[in-house]
């Protein structure tokens, strides 16, 4: 049987980052996921820690956060670890479609719900959103594209909004992917730019749903800015996320180019554990079960949606390795009284507790499996939704897990 240097379980941002970090060192890597991973759901921008107010240096903010939250995943990676991991991530997206932060701090970007949301790194196609002035902004939606209502978004953002009919295409009930694909065609985006220009009343900013092409979004941006004479930005919206899909495709392209084996579509049905080590995993594609083995493993299977965690009636379990899970007491203590409580539901803190090397440990702090590391949202003691730290945790811990795994 072929032996890999590393098997990464999970095709979300944490798993992709871990696999990519490993192939960069020349390691033979297998990455396996049940599906495409959450990057197509959430991955519009790269959140690091949204609770740090804009204008504050992010490194200082995180250093303080770590001091106050010694159990947080960021306490494992440290500020330097986050910086290195993000630099690596940014290296995967060379200009013209690059990711950047503004003044080393958080920026406030408009969302498809018409709210303003803090984030750290964002693609060049969203940069103008951080600078937009509502009175000078036109929000453009498309008739028949239900995921983005230009008038609602503009109402909340206090801008002017229009919904354009798509000339010639007549796409009633179109999808984000169909729109993104149209944008990839130069003739379409030129006509769109013209159509927007005719709607403009002196606005200097144009906001569009985040569907500005899959293949070459920077070129779409350039065309639209040239034709309209305004600064154009994408607004993150409902899944499937086109910016997230770009991220996924870029990682997959790079991993395959560097020789990684990429398996997608079936879950890992079993792990063989012997003597405190993982000896192999089995992937089930009915009626077959295929076994793969490696010297090291990284578990980046996500939380409840991804299947990394599973809530039984009385306890939360990790279904593959049956790792010890930190959990907030009895079931009745898992949730707050109201769904939208500003305080995180206690269940969000549940997850895997690790040592400094990201190896899962039990209640006594003893390492459970010496060649398995955990990365991403499956880790305990973060509240990615409320903290707005999802992508930062994924990238920083995925990077660290791969580095530490390959150092042994």
């Amino acid at each position, binding site marked *: 049987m072929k032996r890999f240097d590393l098997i990464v379980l999970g095709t979300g941002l944490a798993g992709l980052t871990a696999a990519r970090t490993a192939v960069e060192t020349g390691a033979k890597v297998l990455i396996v996921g*049940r599906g495409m991973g959450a990057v*197509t759901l959430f991955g519009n921008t790269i959140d690091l820690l949204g609770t740090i107010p804009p204008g504050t240096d992010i490194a200082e903010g995180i250093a303080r956060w770590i001091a106050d939250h010694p159990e947080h995943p960021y306490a494992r990676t440290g500020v330097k670890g986050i910086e290195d991991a993000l630099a690596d991530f940014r290296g995967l997206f060379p200009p013209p479609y690059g990711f950047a932060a503004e003044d080393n701090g958080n920026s406030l970007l408009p969302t498809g719900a018409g709210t303003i949301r803090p984030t750290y790194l964002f693609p060049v196609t969203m940069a103008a959103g951080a600078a937009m002035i509502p009175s000078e902004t036109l929000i453009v939606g498309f008739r028949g594209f239900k995921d983005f209502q230009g008038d609602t978004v503009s109402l909340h953002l206090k801008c002017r909004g229009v919904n354009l009919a798509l000339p010639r295409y007549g796409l009633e009930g179109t*999808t984000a992917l*169909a729109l993104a694909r149209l944008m990839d065609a130069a003739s379409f985006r030129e006509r769109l730019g013209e159509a927007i220009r005719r709607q403009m009343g002196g606005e200097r900013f144009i906001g569009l749903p985040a569907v500005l092409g899959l293949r070459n979004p920077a070129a779409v941006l350039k065309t639209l800015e040239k034709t309209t004479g305004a600064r154009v930005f994408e607004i993150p919206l409902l899944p499937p996320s086109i910016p997230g899909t770009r991220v996924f495709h870029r990682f997959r392209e790079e991993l395959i180019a560097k020789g990684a084996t*990429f398996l997608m579509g079936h879950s890992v049905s079993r792990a063989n554990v012997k003597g405190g080590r993982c000896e192999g995993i089995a992937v089930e594609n009915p009626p*077959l*079960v*295929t076994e793969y083995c490696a010297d090291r493993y990284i578990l980046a299977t996500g939380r409840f949606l991804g299947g990394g965690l599973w809530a039984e009636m009385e306890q939360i379990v990790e279904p593959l390795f049956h790792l010890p899970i930190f959990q907030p007491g009895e079931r009745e203590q898992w949730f707050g009284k109201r769904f939208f409580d500003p305080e995180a539901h206690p269940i969000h803190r549940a997850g895997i507790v690790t040592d400094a090397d990201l190896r899962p440990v039990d209640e006594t702090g003893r390492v459970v499996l010496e060649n398995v590391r955990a990365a991403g949202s499956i880790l305990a003691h973060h509240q990615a939704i409320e903290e707005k730290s999802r992508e930062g945790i994924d990238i920083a811990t995925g990077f660290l897990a791969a580095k530490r795994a390959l150092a042994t």
Partner: protein
Amino acid sequence: MTKAEKKPVLLPKLPDVCVRCATCMAACPVSRVTPRFPGPKQAGPGAQRFRSASEASVDDWIELCTGCHLCDTVCPAGVPISEMNMMAKAKYLDERGRTFRDWLLVRSDLFGELAARFSKIINPLMKNGILRRLLDALLKIDRRRDLPGYEYPTFRRWFRTRSTAEGATGRRKVAYFYGCFTNTNETDVGKAAVEVLEAHGLEVVVPPQRCCGIPRLGVGDLKGAREMGRRNIEMLLPTVREGIDIVFSSTSCGLMLRHEYSRILHLPGAEELAGSLFDICEFLLRLREEEKASPIFQPLSLKAAYFAPCHLRSLNIGFPALDLLRMIPGLDVRMLEADCCGLGGLYGFKTEKFSIAEEIGKDLTEAAARMNPDIILTDCEGCRMQVRHLTGLRVIHPLQLLRDALNPS
């Protein structure tokens, strides 16, 4: 490596397993090019909640699903989306009835041998403009689509009459499932398969076999597909029971034999067969990794693009052909970054679906233009036809290039 395990498969087939995350909507090749198909989320689990065995189908757009399976591969909840679509399509077409064209096209295995025998007459006829207009008008087989030419002698006949390579008898045996297209339309793929397997120290045997039945599954003819499957299992199991592994060079035939026979058709013996079936490149790669055979590849100075067929993705074995091709010195081989060529087997031959197949294919054409390769390699005959049609480039099976690298003469 792959092996069948006796274990009940607990696939959650309920549409409620779907959490409506819409990831499949970022993968479906059809819904990205036409608003006529609502996409896998709606067509699969969405509509499934409203489908009832006792009521007539209302979702006529279900026929627009190509059965590429890409939705299954990206779903984070493990919903068997394409299977839901397949079942709904079968029910819809059972009710509506299938056209004569569909009846005819899925039976190409029956007249293929005869057509090959008379290929000198048939091939020019299939290029004849008047006949193609007639086929288009009467049968709705799109005249803009090149029909594949037939070749004689067929692969089967060639294999039977050839002299086995020196010293090839008495070696470890491997059985070859060649598929109809290799047999009558692209015999060189079969010849390359045999030569490459023999170069890896194996004796090739060709057990009796029939069309795998995937064309019938494509038009929702479960009964017909089941009949093909039943016969193939009957013909192939003796080989399996002799302890001989079976390899396939067509990823669509392979997907059908290895997974659909049990997953969709629930055929007895399907699991036993699946446990001994391998994609030919997967098999060769394993031989080399286990150092059981490692003939040396001679350098080939070419810029090649490798395109991964959807059904290979659905097999979920990675890209073994790409891994093998990378062992050829001097060969600059890169992945063609495109999802789905658009042909969908017989789908793209049908007049009412031709434009959808073409539109899906445009993305591949552009990806190929960006790479500008000398040659494109892909494991599926449908993809090869479509990629040739789209790019005008030389498009062959990876095995044919591997064979060239093994016999530089």
